[in-house]
């Protein structure tokens, strides 16, 4: 997420928005954004309903056995169609923003 913030200008230059989603409350996300300097939208899905809809629930993996999201990235084009999916198999290894942007631009021919 830090990496996406660092490359946010490049994404915006290509007309691509970046948004983060987790089960954290708006207050918790606000705190995170303040402390880490994130400026893109952080959305709160406290009951993991959207996370479930995207098929990436990690049951009981959170605090007190709470259902949370497993790390994942999706690119949704302007028509609302998924054009790129990245499901890491390792918590430590997230999509690199530069690589993601390259793949996405190739997908949308931009």
């Amino acid at each position, binding site marked *: 997420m830090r990496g996406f913030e660092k490359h946010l200008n490049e994404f915006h230059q290509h007309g691509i*928005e970046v948004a983060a989603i987790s089960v954290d409350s708006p207050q918790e996300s606000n705190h995170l954004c303040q402390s880490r300097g994130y400026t893109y939208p952080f959305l709160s899905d406290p009951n993991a309903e959207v996370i479930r809809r995207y098929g990436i629930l*990690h049951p009981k993996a959170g605090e007190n056995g709470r259902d949370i999201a497993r790390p994942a*990235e999706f690119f949704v084009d302007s028509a609302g169609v998924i054009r790129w999916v990245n499901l890491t198999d390792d918590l430590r290894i997230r999509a690199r923003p530069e690589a993601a942007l390259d793949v996405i631009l190739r997908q949308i021919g931009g």
Partner: protein
Amino acid sequence: MDGESVTTYNGFLKRRWNISLWAGFAIVVLSLISYIPVFALLPITRDVPWVNYLLFVLGGVLLAIGLKRAYREPDRYRGKISGPILSVLSLLIAGFFVLGILVLTKQLPASSGAPHVGQPAPQFTLANIDGKQIALADLLKGHQGVILIFYRGYW
């Protein structure tokens, strides 16, 4: 007067602090605690933490040298008690690190139900940090698309 105890005292002082044992242990600890704040942030050391592995090896070599000194030259070096303790702790630390890297962080569900490329993205409306409701359509407005980053949360 009391010459014997002075000699003994000096004799004790002559046994040198077994620095390689402590240096080895310090490097092992450093390797463990440095991964998250340092090496996990650097692209070339994140996926395969080779710097941390090298530090564990270096720490192990120093511990081995320290142990050898402690047992082969007990008159000159200390460490017959601290050496084995530090070595066992170091092994546990390195084992925990390797287990974490190779096993624990990979315990993720397969998520075979996730939408595939070409499928419509599931709709949603969620609160942002100001409590304002934001729909997928709002994120897409005026954009070529949006990257949705799902993360575990800072619980």
